[in-house]
């Protein structure tokens, strides 16, 4: 019998598989397909203070081995998320729920995180300082070590629950940002958010996305994500949630070996809505074939 459980900021995850924010809504569409209790945790849709429509269409484009999105944080706002979406998810789902908070000002991060912290339906708060698809917020907080530390410190001051900072890959030295967040009190780090990218329609001679740029995800970014998790693991002591193009149980093992304690799965859910369930189910046999009895022994195992 293989033990798949990991500990993340004092939470016990029965396995390391977590659907990534923005690819799983609030779980509703997937709960119609399978029992979500097979997941390690769920990171729900990125949430802001006010409801947001997001960016104009088209918001989606295909790329070699991946996709671009420029959804732009469409969400019903923190109050509706906490009063409607999460209680509905909690009615059938008993594993940890990760709230994902975005903002356009320090104030907004603090207010939303404090509300999420007070909710009985939130177990961990993931602070998104890395959304590439909104202007005047999001990624601008996560590309400068000083700003990232400032957000971390402000949010930590109002949260009793563990706080995980979600980092952007669109930086020259992700380890420096990671260290700044750790020093400011972050309990964990999740990485990577999407890579800033674009496509052009050769007939119209215009960017394919209405937002001009979008975030690249999918298998194309997996090796980049793996390298960044490696670099951050070398730089900090706090746990890492690894993500970026993870599409199979083998990818999960690579992420763990690179230094991740748990793994988020994003774009794969859009291509195969059963991806998280299938990956979680494939882990025991894969670990057995690798001669591993406790999954947590893999964490950082390639260093």
């Amino acid at each position, binding site marked *: 019998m293989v033990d798949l459980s990991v500990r993340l900021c004092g939470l016990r995850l029965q396995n390391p598989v977590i659907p990534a924010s923005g690819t*799983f809504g609030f779980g*509703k*569409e997937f709960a119609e397909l399978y029992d979500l209790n097979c997941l390690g945790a769920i990171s729900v849709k990125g949430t802001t203070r006010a409801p947001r429509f997001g960016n104009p269409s088209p*918001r*989606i*484009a*295909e790329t070699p081995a991946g996709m671009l999105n420029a959804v732009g944080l469409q969400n019903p706002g923190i109050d509706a998320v906490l009063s409607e979406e999460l209680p509905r998810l909690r009615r059938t789902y008993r594993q940890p729920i990760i709230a994902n908070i975005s903002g356009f000002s320090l104030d907004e991060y603090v207010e939303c995180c404090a509300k999420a912290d007070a909710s009985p339906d939130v177990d961990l708060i993931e602070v998104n300082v890395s959304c590439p698809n909104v202007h005047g917020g999001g990624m601008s907080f996560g590309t400068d070590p000083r700003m990232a530390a400032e957000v971390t410190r402000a949010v930590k001051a109002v949260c009793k629950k563990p706080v995980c900072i979600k980092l952007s890959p669109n930086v020259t030295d992700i380890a420096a940002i990671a260290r700044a967040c750790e020093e400011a009190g972050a309990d964990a780090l999740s990485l990577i958010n999407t890579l800033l990218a674009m496509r052009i329609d050769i007939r119209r001679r215009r960017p394919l996305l209405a937002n001009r740029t979008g975030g690249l995800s999918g298998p194309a970014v997996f090796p980049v994500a793996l390298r960044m998790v490696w670099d951050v693991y070398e730089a900090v002591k706090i746990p890492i949630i690894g993500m970026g193009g993870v599409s199979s149980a083998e990818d999960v093992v690579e992420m763990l070996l690179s230094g991740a304690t748990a793994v988020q799965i994003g774009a794969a859910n*859009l*291509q195969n809505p059963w991806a998280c369930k299938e990956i979680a189910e494939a882990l025991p046999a894969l670990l057995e074939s690798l001669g591993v009895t406790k999954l947590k022994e893999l964490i950082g195992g390639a260093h």
Partner: protein
Amino acid sequence: MNRAVFTIESNASLTEAVFRMTLCGDTSAITAPGQFVNIALAANYLRRPISVCDWEPGRLTIVCKVVGRGTAQMSRMAPGATLDLLLGLGNGYDMAPSGERPLLIGGGVGVPPLYGLCKRLIAAGRHPAVVLGFNTASEIFYEDEFRDLGADVTVATADGSCGVKGFVTDALPEAYTHFYACGPEPMLRAVCKATLTSGQLSFEQRMGCGFGACMGCTCETLTGHKRICKDGPVLRKEELLW
């Protein structure tokens, strides 16, 4: 929604750019005309959303136009090959408000989903009028198929090479009880202006997932944000912001 592997039974071109594919597999997840399937294709990351033209237990017909790499790949696939489909996607057309004489308006590659609708309206004892619009005579497809169902069919071509010269809005009948439309957005806008009754319109958008998870295809309506893939692709004329 269901996921199933389908086997291509036939694949043939109807015009230079439009092809019809019939597929065998479990169609039980399809509940209404106007729904779509999302097709996984080798070497393409995202699935391709394609409207259902017609279906019966064990068999599915799609008619699509080659518009890019994915549809070009599909047009060349041989019978016997298999495809991984998500199906039963979207809301589809609501037949309840059709009335005695519904009007079906299709433009170009928007024509296919109206066929499955027309067939079921006739089976329900309605008497649909059908207006099909194309650019030119060589691009016309499915005119005979609609006639064979017993519908009154009018064809319009933009260049006048067949039927009424002009757009679908130049060929609308005088009396109808409700309309159903599918086609390019400029056509849908024109149809909304030109029609006097309530109606339902099917929309197209680039999609990430096709089942409501990614918010990649959301549009604004009078009744709130609608995901084209999950809350649509069919929207009521009354909820549009036009």
